[in-house]
Every structure is written in C-alpha cells, then in structure tokens.
C-alpha cells in the first residue's frame, strides 16, 4: 500500500512538474531593462505573475511615487 502511494505521488509530481511552464524573458521600464524567470502553471498564472513583476519594477523606478489612490 505504502509503495503504491509513493509510486502514485512520484508520477503526480512528475506530471505536475512537466505541466508548468518555465518562462524567461525581459522587459523594459522607465529606468532600465530587467530579466525574469517565471514558473507559471498556465497562461492565466503567467499573466498575473508577469503583470505584478512589471508593476513592481515601475514602482521601483519611481521609488513608490507612482502609487495613485486619488
């Protein structure tokens, strides 16, 4: 039983590892260019992670001065 669970877990982890995307690339902000590595589960996950990274980069450029809450 224990062996079966271990085998199942191994395959599940292997499948999950291959199911994710290792995305690399670069983007430019007002204060320079950045490289990134994002491990995304799917396209939606990539969108969210990338979007956050670029927003943080822009904030880093302007040392927080771009935060706008009217």
């Amino acid at each position: 039983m224990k062996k079966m669970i271990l085998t199942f877990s191994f395959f599940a982890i292997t499948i999950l590892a291959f199911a994710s995307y290792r995305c690399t690339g670069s983007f430019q902000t007002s204060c320079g260019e950045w490289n990134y590595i994002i491990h995304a589960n799917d396209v939606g996950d990539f969108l969210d992670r990338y979007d956050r990274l670029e927003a943080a980069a822009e904030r880093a450029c302007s040392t927080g001065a771009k935060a706008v809450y009217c």
Partner: protein
Amino acid sequence: MKKYFLLGIMIFVSNMILNAQNNMTVLYSVKYNVNYMRDNVRIIEDICQLNITEKSSYFFSIGKEIRLQKIREKFEKNGQNGGPINFKKGELRSNYLNFTVLKKYENKKAIFIEDIGGQNLGFVKDTLSSNRWIITNEKETFNGLICNKATMKRDTVLITAWFTTKIPLQEGPLYFYGLPGLIIKAKTNTGFEIELVSTENKILKKEQLKIPNYVLVSEKEVNRAKANYDAAFKSGRLPNGDIVTPKNY
C-alpha cells in the same frame, strides 16, 4: 442623445424588476475617460468601465484588459514553446488605473481592490455618504446633457463633479457617489480628470460581472503588503519563486 439616455434608464429600471428573481442581473454600463496628471506628467490615460447593478457597482480599467490580452498573445506565440517572452519599452501600456472600486450599496462602502503579490486585497475607501456634496447653481452642458456642478472636500482632496438628473443614478467614477444623478464629469485637485464616454444597457449572468474575490484589510495593511512585495522584488527573488534581475546586473 437625451432620448437615448432616458430610454436607457427606463429599460434599466424595468429589467431590474423582471430579472430580480433569477440569476441574471441588469447592468447599466458606463464608460469614462480617466486621466491623471502629476507634475505635468500624464500618469494615467485610460478608459474605465462602471458596471451598475441593483446592489452594487464595479469600476475597473479597460486599458489593463487590453494589456493582459497583449501579454497573453505573446505567451501563446513564444512562451508555450519555451522561447523567451520579451517586451520592448512602450510595448505594453502601463498608464492604466491599477486598482478597481467596488461599491456595495447595502453596506454603504466603497472598496478599493488591488492585486498585491498574488492576492486581491481590498480596503474601505469611503462610506457612500451623500451629505458632503455641496450642489451649486452652476450649470454646464456635456454630451448634450445639462449638468449641475457639485463639490466635495474629503481630507485634503477637493472633488468637483458635474451630474445630470436626467440619469437618476447616484453613481459616478472611483468612489464618487450620492449625487441625485449620474456624474458626467469630475476632477480633483490632485490631478484626476474623468469624463463620460458612453452608456449602455446589458443583461448578464451574475458571474460575468468580473468582480474578483478579495480579502478585506485596512489601507495600512495594503500599503504594508505592497512594501513587502516591493522589498522581495528588489532582492530579486519573489516568495512564489519567480526571479527578476536588472539586465546589466
């Protein structure tokens, strides 16, 4: 123009009654041009949509949706094959409104919502009180609609709004609320300038309203979460394992 607005309101009210019992919701959808200038620099230049239903309204950026669509296209073209996904300067718009506003009429709350480090955090920005507006006798015409001028002071922010009673919805962009008609134009002394672009009636399923799940915290906690994320960003490694480095590093 006026006729269409009035017809729209009539359809909105009648549909509200017809659809109250099922999963459909009636939407009066308003689009605004949103601009924000600081030190003569245009920081926000966006179209935002205000979806109004019988219980709440939701104000969000359309510019952000366009941006996400561009990222999606690039991911599908390169990322899925393991290729690099590079973005040139100016390729993606960054001058969009990066938070959304949910107004809950029953709770009398306007909640600002923002994705910070993978979690939507919201804080109460306003209590939807109409008492603070001062309605003046000044009138001006926008889009063929005669509008009244009103002002409100909130902390150090002075808000000037023009509203029309021809559209009897106490709604407006951002957290602005409580005038006896829809806000057609608004500006603040902090640099916001907002003007109505269009109005539309829609009937949607409630799940199509796009209101995100969020955790309600204080404004201080939102700022702290943002500072923590930014600190992790500066260290080069995010809590979720993502890595970012300046290119000349």
